[in-house]
């Protein structure tokens, strides 16, 4: 069984929601990424979403945009992100890794080559932000054949009919975008999230993760009660800007620990 399914099965027996921290690979530099990933796991991460930096991150707010810019300035490429995952796997065979990014780097590498390389690196899932199901058949079929889960976003604007079509193609988990906006936005409404998650559950047995706009342990706790996983990105990535590099690992671990206690 693959790592994502194993992970959610275990959490189901523990009756606990998953904590999924997001960091941008290569931010602030590629050397720090693997140590950071291990630290996140140690502090309570169940799954890690690893952002693949892109020059034009249209769906991201300023915090993740700047993370992308820093990572690119440090020379991070998709090739290198896959190498980082491979390095992480030397010491960790359990924690699922999901790559989250935009389509163009994958297009340029080639779908076949990317799927093969990602499988070799033991990537568990791939979320391509700007690839809706209508355009994604070729890539998603290849990913599946390489035992990688295609992961999809659902939004407050997604109609019931679309939820069903997307769920039919998805694997691993469904990522519900908790608000209309970009990553790191404010004003998440827990009640409306709960309603939409309940609607999605009518159409899919996949675990439902919620992200965009979860900033603290209190909100994470509330969201965890109505979903299967909580994704926290900007609130962690912002630490790269506010904390000296020498203290980054410990500070991020502390924040993740706090989030985990909220679940």
């Amino acid at each position, binding site marked *: 069984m693959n790592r994502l399914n194993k992970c959610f099965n275990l959490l189901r027996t523990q009756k606990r929601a998953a904590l999924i921290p997001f960091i941008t690979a290569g931010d602030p530099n590629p050397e720090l990424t693997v140590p950071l990933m291990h630290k996140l796991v140690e502090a309570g991460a169940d799954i890690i979403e690893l952002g693949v930096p892109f020059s*034009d991150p249209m769906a991201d707010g300023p915090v993740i945009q700047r993370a992308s810019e820093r990572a690119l300035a440090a020379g991070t490429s998709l090739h290198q992100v896959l190498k980082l995952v491979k390095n992480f796997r030397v010491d960790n065979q359990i924690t699922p890794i999901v790559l989250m990014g935009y389509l163009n*780097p994958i297009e340029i*590498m080639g779908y076949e080559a990317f799927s093969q390389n990602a499988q070799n690196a033991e990537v568990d899932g791939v979320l391509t932000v700007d690839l*809706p199901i209508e*355009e994604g058949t070729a890539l998603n079929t290849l990913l599946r054949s390489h035992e990688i889960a295609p992961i999809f976003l659902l939004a407050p604007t997604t109609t019931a009919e679309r939820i069903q079509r997307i769920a039919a193609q998805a694997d691993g988990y469904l990522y519900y975008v908790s608000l209309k906006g970009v990553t790191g936005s404010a004003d998440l409404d827990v009640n409306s999230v709960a309603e939409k998650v309940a609607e999605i559950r009518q159409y899919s047995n996949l675990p439902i993760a919620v992200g965009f706009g979860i900033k603290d342990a209190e909100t994470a706790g509330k969201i965890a009660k109505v979903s299967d996983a909580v994704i926290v990105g900007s609130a962690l990535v912002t630490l790269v800007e506010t904390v000296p590099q020498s203290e980054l690992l410990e500070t991020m671990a502390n924040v993740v620990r706090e989030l985990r206690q909220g679940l």
Partner: protein
Amino acid sequence: MSVTKLNVPDAQGHFGPYGGIFVAETLMQPLEELRQAYEHYIKDSDFLAELDDDLFHFVGRPSPLYHAKRWSDVLGGAQIYLKREDLNHTGAHKINNTVGQALLAKRMGKKRIIAETGAGQHGVATATVAARFGMECVVYMGAEDVKRQAINVYRMRLLGAEVRTVESGSKTLKDALNEAMRDWVTHIDNTFYIIGTVAGPHPYPVMVRDFQTIIGRETRKQIQEKTGQLPDMLIACVGGGSNAIGLFYPFLEDHAVRIYGVEAAGDGLETGHHAAPLCAGKTGVLHGNRTYLMSDDNGQIIETHSISAGLDYPGVGPEHAWLKDSGRVQYVAINDQEALAAFHNLSRLEGIMPALESSHALAYCQKIAPTLDKNKSIVVNLSGRGDKDVHTVATLEGIKI
């Protein structure tokens, strides 16, 4: 490959392998609503009557087709006709599209308009229609462009628009587009995003094209009134490609008409500092569609360079990508110096100061006109006027105004 305009795009907006819809999930439903509204109103006689009325009374259409006799004589070849989009209200072809989209926004009940802009012409054209319809207007503009197009920034503010300076990425048009998309995804309920070119997710490339084909439809009629026949050649500059597709589209099935799209070669194609994805780029996905792009070996978008802010864009409309592959349109590139020379030539020989964008089309015309007989005709789309570029030209030539 045979190309007819009737077989593209398909229902999902594909021009062969190009176009489509590549956006985050939140925008899928708003784009579907836009598509339905657009496809409904573009066949609605009341909508079309209001659009025609606005194009006539507010924009000042039809724009003249002007025989540039003196310039033609100096070049000593084909007769050159200029489609005078520079004479439109606000000084460029951009208003043809903003009038159309604003009328659509009104019918969709959207009270807030957003736009991206490079040279500022699309921003001004959007601010203009927003003012007229009493809509709130926010225009995103890269910090670099805000600097080099200060007059247009002030024009937008005078028209009541809020201009938001974009500091991310390369601080030019592509980043302004990213930021406008982020705004749209955050305010979808009340906001209509007026994209200024034939790029972006479906239905934008089709919708913007349809609003701009007024250029080609008028040209077709006007040239036949003047010469009794269709032109031998069409030339237009291509950034995103809206003025070009507007001129070309009604002629695509007239296979005797040779068609040239002119990209910005910047410092020269060989230097890598240019904005010519069709001539020297590769295919990829950006801003909601698959097309030719300026991207590096890792799939990151490369910063472009052109003397003209309006052409300084790393992508191009998907229909142009399709027309390139099909061979129906030839795409060529003109560098900064050649464009600048054409800017001066037209100013001095015809008393018309062209936009630096349009100067690229004029520069290619200068090259090719002398190779053709005097009884041949070329139509160049003079997509905008050059007042906005006076500062740029002066600075480049070491003159302080």
